[in-house]
């Protein structure tokens, strides 16, 4: 690249980029500004202006209201992420290194589970959980997330394990190591980056999930997205609360994205561009 200084082209480039960046940041700015206003100061015509007095009370109020849902979400996300990641790693190991006849077909059938609109399994899922007496609580929701998280986690791990030389596995097998001892001694220690990518991906997905949260849990066990939707749902709400709540619901995933963005993007790419 040649160094360009203030040519019309680069002015245009930076101008466009700045405009686009403003468009992308606009909602975030609006959320922060509105959350910091006093309820009485929020009016539609002055929505864009910076608040005269900073009002942090909305945050503590939102925290009070959303605390149970926040805690639910943390329990749900941590356990479902752990479950689906570990199982996904085992699956990926099988699909990458213990190929059996027709394993590619099974894998393709497996991936299909990632692409179905979840509405189509919602009713039987609801019925099954009810029959298992898991409907309404967190365990049922965790189970659903673990099962339907498997296709994507298996996919990421399979692609990751494809890079481990097969010769390594072969020689271990000749030395008499079995399926699980190879996994524990060789594959698992090598898969730390895979675990980071997969669990971050699952974490954000599960944290942000809404459809199952609203359909499969009772009020006391609602995850944060459902709690926020209810907080924002009423017609007469003053907007500072939903905005503060939104920020609260966004902070965990935003933090992941900002500090561990590299891994997050790898999960994103793995979820779409295969091979």
């Amino acid at each position: 690249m040649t160094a360009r200084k203030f040519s019309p082209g680069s002015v245009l480039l930076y101008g466009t980029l700045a405009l686009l960046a403003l468009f992308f940041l606009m909602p975030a700015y609006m959320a922060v500004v509105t959350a910091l206003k006093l309820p009485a100061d929020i009016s539609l015509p002055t929505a864009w202006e910076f608040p005269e007095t900073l009002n942090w009370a909305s945050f503590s109020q939102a925290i009070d209201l959303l605390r149970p849902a926040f805690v639910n979400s943390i329990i749900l996300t941590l356990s479902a992420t752990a479950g689906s990641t570990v199982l996904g790693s085992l699956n990926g190991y099988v699909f990458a290194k213990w190929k059996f006849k027709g394993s590619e077909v099974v894998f393709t059938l497996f991936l299909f589970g990632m692409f179905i609109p979840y509405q189509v399994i919602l009713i039987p899922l609801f019925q099954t959980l009810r029959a298992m007496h898991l409907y309404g609580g967190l365990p049922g929701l965790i189970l659903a997330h673990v099962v339907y998280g498997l296709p994507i986690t298996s996919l990421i791990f399979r692609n990751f394990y494809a890079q481990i030389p097969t010769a390594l596995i072969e020689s271990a097998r000749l030395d008499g190591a079995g399926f699980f001892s190879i996994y524990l001694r060789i594959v698992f220690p090598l898969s730390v980056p895979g675990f980071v990518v997969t669990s971050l991906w699952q974490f954000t997905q599960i944290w942000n999930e809404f459809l199952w949260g609203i359909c499969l849990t009772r009020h006391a066990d609602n995850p944060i997205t459902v709690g926020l939707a209810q907080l924002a749902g009423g017609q007469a709400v003053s907007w500072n609360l939903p905005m503060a709540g939104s920020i609260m619901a966004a902070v965990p995933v935003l933090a992941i994205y900002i500090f561990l963005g590299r891994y997050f993007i790898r999960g994103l790419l793995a979820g779409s561009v295969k091979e």
Partner: protein
Amino acid sequence: MVLIGVFVYGFIGNTVWTSMTDWGGSGSLALDPEKHFIGLDNYVDLFTGFLSGGFRQDLVNAVYYSLMLLGGAVGLGMFIAILLDRKPWGEGFLRTVFLYPMSLSFIVSGTIWRWLLAPQGGVNVLPTYAGLKPLHFDWLSSTGAVLVFNWQHLFSVLLYVAAFFMILLGLWGMRHDPRKAIRRWLVPGIVVGAATWLFGGLLPDALFMEEEHGFNLATLGIIIATIWQYSGYTMALYLAGFNGISQDLRDAAMLDGAGEVGYYRHVAIPMLKPITISAVIILSHISLKMFDLIFAMTGPDNAETGHPALTMYLTTFRANDFARGAAIAVVLFLVAATFIIPYLVSQYKQRRRG
């Protein structure tokens, strides 16, 4: 693996069966509800029933919504990727800015965008800061519609659209292989179009009454929010792709006299065709099951912005009409399957070869 077998395929089968029963109404929440097999009646009702106009509006919305989301997110994402590919100052920071919406929940972004698109505030007052008059557009509550057509004429409309695309494909293919383009696309396209025009009156009416459906203007707000959230994603895909193209190839193209524009048009973007295909597949999959964002932005308030995924939830869990909900879900599933199965099969073949 057994779990996936049961939870994916078993459940799909169960839903298909449910959709053919009359499960619903009072007593439907009993542990062992009464169900009777009624065949395809639910589907017939959804597509032709007097009271199911809402569902047909949803389908029309979903089609417009998917098309505009695809165009918007792929186009904007590609555009930003090309800008960032020139390695401007602050590229890393800008990339973060463009991608952060992707990490947010639809509920979060829906809530914020609903406030931004409030009738007398938010985006509508922005022009006043530049000394202009405020806009008066009902982003989310509008019930106006454009591109309206009568559902009775559904079959002829579909044929016209097919003819239009065939002719378009034919004209586009003229450059490479005129004879094939004419034989395969142009002539059949014109024949279909002309036949529809001449004999369209003979086609059966899709509905016994007149019913108008169109692109609802309030959906526009939802589309903008979705594009905001997902163009960063397509940008990341394309950036990864652009970085994978070797500098040599780029230099070679430049030496051959391709300008910047020519390089992207004739070299980079055709090379990234697989990425475009994945992006289209993933985005249409997302737009088909779009539920959270619409729920948070207009929710059940503005029925005109409905979407099959949302209606499925409302029918099933609010109205307890499980059989109808299942039928809607199966329609969604079939639409999704028509493009996901070919995609997975091609991936599978690639793996076999690779």
